[in-house]
């Protein structure tokens, strides 16, 4: 039985700031009641992850991003046939588009928490700035998980 909320943090723990997504999940795992929350991690997004969205009420993708405007950007996702389907690593919007194609229905409400990173080399530790950004994102998630409702999450969108 899947839980109504899915938090999906993805990235590679051994590639510097790429670890932001998985480390964010570790924080959630140790600080929150997970009765209604599934945590999922992977190196990168792929087509089969569309099936992980089934029967969810709210989905939050968490990823490192070099394109962040703020320390973290929180946005709502819509399905998009973007260029990422031409690589082994898909964007969350492309995963939603796969869901839509497979299920012939709209995906559940999905949001992206992009945490600003800057350094992604193999074997590197996390940068100082990324650690600070992770900390800010971890503070922010408390607001989200205290109000696990679509309209409440929409109020938190900052980009």
């Amino acid at each position, binding site marked *: 039985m899947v839980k109504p909320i899915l938090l999906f943090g*993805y*990235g*590679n*723990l*051994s*590639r510097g*700031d*790429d670890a932001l997504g998985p480390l964010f999940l570790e924080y959630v795992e140790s600080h929150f009641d997970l009765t209604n929350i599934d945590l999922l*991690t*992977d*190196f*990168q*997004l*792929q*087509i*089969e992850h*569309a*099936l992980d969205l089934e029967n969810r009420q709210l989905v939050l993708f968490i*990823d*490192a*991003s*070099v*394109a962040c405007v703020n320390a973290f950007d929180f946005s709502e996702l819509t399905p*998009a*046939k*973007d*260029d*990422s*389907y*031409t*690589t*082994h*690593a898909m*964007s969350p919007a*492309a995963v939603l*588009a*796969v869901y839509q*194609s*497979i299920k012939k229905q709209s995906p559940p409400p999905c949001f992206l928490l*992009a945490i600003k*990173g800057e350094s*992604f*080399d*193999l*074997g590197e530790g996390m940068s100082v700035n990324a650690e600070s950004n992770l900390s800010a994102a971890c503070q922010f998630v408390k607001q989200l998980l205290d109000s696990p409702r679509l309209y409440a999450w929409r109020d938190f969108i900052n980009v």
Partner: protein
Amino acid sequence: MYEHLETAEQTENLKRVVVDPVSRVEGHGKVTLLLDENNKVQQARLHIVEFRGFERFIQGRPYWELPVLVQRLCGICPVSHHLAAAKAIDQLVGIDPENLPVSADKLRRLLHFGQVMQSHALHFFHLSSPDLLFGFESDIGKRNIIAVLTDYPDIGLQGVKLRKYGQEVIRMVSGKRIHGTGAIAGGMNKSLTKAERDYLLEDIDQMITWAAGSVALIKKVHCSNLPYYDDFATIRTNYLGLTKPDGALELYHGGIRAKNVEGETILDHFDYCNYNDIIHEEVRSWTYMKFPYLLSLGKEDGWYRVGPLARVNNCDYINTPLAEAARVEFKAHTGEAMVHSTLAFHWTRLIEVLHCAESIKELLHDPDIMGHDLVAQGERRFEGIGVIEAPRGTLFHHYQVDENDIVTKANLIVSTTSNNMAMNESVRQVAAEYLSGRELTEPLLNNLEVAIRAYDPCLSCATHAVGKMPLQLELVDAQGQLIDKLIKHDDGQIERDSQF
């Protein structure tokens, strides 16, 4: 062969075209072409991001961390690195493959079949089927998984679910879909519960049916235009891979077999622990990527291909009935001892998916996978070598450790490195036979990517930060002036640089 196109004699007045990055492959690679004033190709090269960081990443760490650590080398086949490292550190604790507990051996094989199945399914259905179903020079807007799901919904959905099933096998055996710690030095850390076994059994017959259907599909696609498919990007090469002692297809453990262009055996049942005696790596000035070759044949003639085409070409038979029937049909289609068609990588990849599905079913019915004798230990050693047939081909992990269990030396030969020369030759074949003399367009340049994609190369690892990897095509005239530039953005939009 097309080695004469590796380095042009005079480069001063040649136009330079760059395909950067090559899409629908893992990691970052680029192709550069040098053209004369008549658009005749004078030089073609595939450049690949080097894996040099791997060894430094590993050295200095305690050996028991390796099976988990090396998974982070690659987001596409972490399980292959996991198992190759595990086989190597088995030796560090004094356990050779034949001494691994039976349950541990079978659980590792189950894990590996799941990995190969999901990797191959992703490659075919997601990354290559758009080219194969819509055409190599079809509109770029069609060459993607969404278009496949729209126009061929059943095929697209089967691809997603085959991939998902392979991931579920990995999750059940290792505890997690990624970052699992299934294999440890000398064995495995858990067996399958009855509930986990029954869960996987629920869908396995469906997976076998779909896998068999995918073999029929690729055969139909390939044979629908046989002369083209047997010629495109095709090069005549040696092949290398592991086989079982009786010559059967083997993905987890066996001896090295190499065959030449005619199918004659170069070496057989060779102990991979002595790989340094037969394989050397050449360095070339224009790339950091090495060029492995068989020492006995020399640099010029000793390069070889690895991966599904090599494995199916090299083996005497496959020990599961449906895959074996598919292999026989495949080998018969040319009438030659070896099939050299580069696009036949797809066909053989799907034969292996079928073999994996059949093998998973067989193992799920084997009570040993629920056994509890999972770890063995022997006399401590200071050097370990693990070799496995990863989805893309033969993968070598070689470690030396000191008395404090710290890795002092690591050497990895990944399958994409073994295919380096072959991929370059295929690029040159396509450049010479399909592009040379024509006005270059994006659909035409996709032919180069189709050739590379057939090998399913893993060009780097799992970094995937949002906002990276745009594609740029630059056209430079004979005087070295940039005369055109196309940019493909992350959202898929293609625009011409505003100055042109």
